[in-house]
């Protein structure tokens, strides 16, 4: 037994064990709340886990680097989980091939809207050029978006923040917005979630409906491909 409880804290706070456990514990709680509220959009488990942990790090004066040493084990699984999306896609392949035409049309409409709307709004708001470029790829998954941001000589860390915020906001509003439009086709709803709000939108879609999840992962993957070509082109046209 250590004499000083503070030295125990110093020891634990430097070990990945503590931060990994906190990540899982906080998520387990926020997810339980989300289930208890029958997956209410505002009960989004990612949103609440991130601010609770963020606040905890702030209060304990822990750096993100220290936290990430433990949380990286969870973060790492994003890659294998993306590969794993092949399975629901495979199991619903008949539905997917039947919807190929509406999907491609929606892909073009969605990816063009995502980029042009943010660029035009940011320009109208008088934001500096570097910020506009950093925001342009915000509907893509973080890895690809940051890559695009780099090639445009923008700020990849601003892009990362915009990507996560977009994902969270998309995941929260998608259900009420879709209910408002009265569209009950889960293929269309899911596909829109994936185009507009990448992986976080897809995670939300899987919570609501498996078919929505499948189409959301397709939207996310296809959008990553299209938007990587679209952004450099769009910014030269829109920002003259």
């Amino acid at each position, binding site marked *: 037994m250590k004499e000083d409880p503070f030295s125990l804290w110093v020891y634990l706070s430097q070990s990945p064990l503590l931060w990994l456990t906190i990540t899982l514990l*906080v*998520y387990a709680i926020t*997810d339980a709340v989300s289930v208890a509220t029958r997956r209410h959009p505002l009960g989004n*488990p*990612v949103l609440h*886990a991130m*601010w609770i*942990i*963020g*606040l905890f*790090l*702030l209060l304990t004066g822990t750096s*993100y680097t220290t936290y990430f040493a433990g949380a990286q084990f969870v973060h790492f699984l994003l*890659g*294998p*989980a993306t*590969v*794993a*999306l*092949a*399975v629901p*896609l495979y199991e619903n*392949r008949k539905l997917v091939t039947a919807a190929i*035409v*509406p*999907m491609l*049309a*929606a892909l*073009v409409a*969605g990816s063009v*809207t*995502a980029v042009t*709307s943010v660029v035009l709004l*940011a320009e109208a708001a008088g934001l500096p050029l570097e*910020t506009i470029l950093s*925001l342009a790829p*915000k509907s893509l998954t973080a890895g690809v978006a940051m890559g*695009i941001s780099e090639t445009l000589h923008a700020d990849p*860390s*601003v892009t990362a*923040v915009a990507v*996560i*915020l977009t994902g*969270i906001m*998309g995941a929260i*509003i*998608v259900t009420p*917005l879709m209910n408002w*439009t009265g*569209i009950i*086709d889960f293929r*269309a709803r899911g*596909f*829109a*979630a994936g*185009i507009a709000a990448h992986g*976080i939108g897809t995670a939300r879609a899987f*919570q609501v409906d498996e078919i929505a999840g499948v189409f959301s992962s397709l939207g996310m993957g296809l959008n*990553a491909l299209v938007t990587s*070509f679209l952004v450099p082109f769009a910014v030269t046209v829109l920002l003259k």
Partner: protein
Amino acid sequence: MIASLTVVLLCQLIGEVIVQGLSLPLPGPVLGLLLLLIMLLARDRFVMMARGPFRDNSVENVSKGLLTHLSLLFVPAGVGVVQKLDLLAAHGIGIICILMVSVTVTLLATVLTFQIVSRFTSREDAR
């Protein structure tokens, strides 16, 4: 289970190698997704592939296990954002509003296009 997990990781690894090697504008795991999908489809066509991890839904079960808590996997990156909010705060609350409007418009444009084209094409089929 280990063999199935290895298949998933292997797909990602091959995906990363191809993406980095050819500097493709697409994440390695997405290419890995395509590889796994092709393998699953090939398994149905060629009986000789239906062995090891590709038997008894083994790869399928491991993948579904990975996907059950997809939301959890975004938490570490999300916490990073909470720490970097000052980056956006420098430009004011305006950015949040811009992102909010943009994501809403994008959702609507996508869902409506999907719906309209889907109705149009299914009517064609019915004819």
